């Protein structure tokens, strides 16, 4: 559970800053543009500019940089793994050797590049979730995907699934905690043993959790039907999304930035 608690990714920090008040669609589009840009750019100068851009957004959002950086922690293993793979497994000019492992100049360069890319990716994405409430995020995704409805894309259903998932995460975590304690009271041991034994000891947690999740799903479906839910057809929303001049300005600015940086670096 420690992983879920520490994840900044997906933890909304309420606020009234410029970034917070942007339409969720704007923030999703900006994040997408930055992600695409990160995969196009292949020089450190380019990354530097993107880092400056993201840093500017963090300032505008009035978030503490330390908190934003904390979001990297759960991803640290993946980042280190990427670095090690690149440094030791790339072909090229050898600048050091450690037994059978060769460190190459190209490897160092590529590894550094990938790590920078990953770091900026994580920070950029967590900036979106830190400044946008889960509901606004779901509404934004639904609105962005809704043109796809004509081609059979279930935009409303996807958004509803996300809403319900968000709604039930705390409920299921609480339940998991309860089951853990109940099983511990019966003498279950989750802490000792090797990885296989520990994975096995999770079974008596997961089975009751799944059974209860299915029962909850069933009851929720009945309750939703009783409240006249019949899919997205004919449904309205209490909160309307509204594009303002701010949103157009931010999108065009990001687009210009992306085109310039993307073509130069």
């Amino acid at each position, binding site marked *: 559970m420690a992983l879920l608690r520490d994840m900044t990714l997906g933890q909304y920090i309420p606020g009234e800053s410029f970034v917070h008040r942007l339409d969720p669609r704007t923030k999703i589009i900006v994040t997408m543009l930055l992600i695409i840009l990160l995969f196009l750019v292949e020089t450190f100068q380019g990354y530097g500019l993107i880092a400056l851009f993201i840093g500017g957004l963090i300032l505008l959002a009035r978030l503490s940089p330390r908190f934003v950086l904390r979001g990297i922690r759960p991803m640290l293993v993946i980042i280190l793994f990427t670095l090690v793979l690149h440094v030791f497994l790339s072909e090229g000019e050898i600048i050091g050797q450690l037994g059978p492992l060769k460190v190459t100049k190209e490897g160092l360069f590529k590894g550094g590049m990938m790590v920078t890319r990953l770091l900026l990716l994580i920070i950029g994405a967590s900036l979106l979730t830190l400044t946008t409430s889960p509901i606004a995020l779901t509404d934004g995704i639904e609105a962005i995907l809704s043109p796809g409805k004509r081609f059979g894309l279930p935009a409303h259903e996807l958004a509803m699934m996300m809403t319900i998932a968000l709604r039930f995460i705390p409920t299921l975590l609480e339940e998991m905690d309860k089951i853990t304690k109940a099983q511990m009271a019966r003498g279950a041991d989750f802490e000792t043993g090797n990885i296989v034994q520990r994975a096995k000891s999770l079974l008596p947690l997961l089975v009751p959790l799944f059974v209860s999740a299915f029962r909850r799903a069933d*009851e929720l479906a009945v309750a939703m039907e009783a409240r006249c839910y019949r899919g997205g057809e004919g449904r309205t929303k209490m909160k309307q999304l509204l594009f303002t001049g701010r949103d157009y300005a931010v999108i065009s600015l990001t687009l210009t930035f992306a085109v310039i940086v993307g073509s130069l670096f």
Partner: protein
Amino acid sequence: MALKDIDLEIQQGEFVSIIGHNGSGKSTLAKLFNALLLPTRGDVIVGGKNTKDGDKLWAIRQQVGMVFQNPDNQIVATTVEEDVAFGPENLGLSPDEIGRRVDEALALVGMEEHRHRATHLLSGGQKQRVAIAGVIAMRPSCIILDEPTSMLDPVGRREVLETVQRLNRQEGITVVLVTHFMEEAALAERVLVMADGGLALSGPPAEIFSEGEQMRQLRLDVPQIVQLAWELRRSGIPVPREIFSINELVDYLCQYA
């Protein structure tokens, strides 16, 4: 649970409670009222509309709201106001109208100040009141509550029952309360006793709870206060049959002495 031979009519504005053992068919009966279940034989008519008529299904569910037992499994959204808005949104109302109805419904259940709170942080009683507000926001003429207090603590129970009584008295909303707490059943104007899928007894609480022998045969308890009143009557104190609450009995006994 199959039901049989039930002939029942509930008037607009009435407060009816349904009691009975597990498996007596009380929840099944409740689910027939808003077409979550359809009768295989016989008809259920809601405000002149037959629940078998597929075209009227959504009109019936708008008219007859339902609150369920488990507060966690009927709340859809992550914040209070979003959840109350869920029903009106399904009805396709305009954003302004939805906003108005959410205000109104939250005020009626006394949850205005929790409007922006996350639903999972509320107490059980508050969650049930949000669920009631979610139903009220659809402007139903009738609310069915299927054991709404069985998972709540005493404080939560009182909150929910007070809300339900207020909606019935002030707003004229018909209330059907399914419960296995006899004290709750006694709040209604009429008590229906279910047994083995049929209607065993029906009448005002004073009548139902005075039929000691019959209730005993159905293996149902009567409220403790009623039992005490029986004993008092047997020992010569003429306690009126309409007394169901501790306060009423205390008042009566103080005046009697």
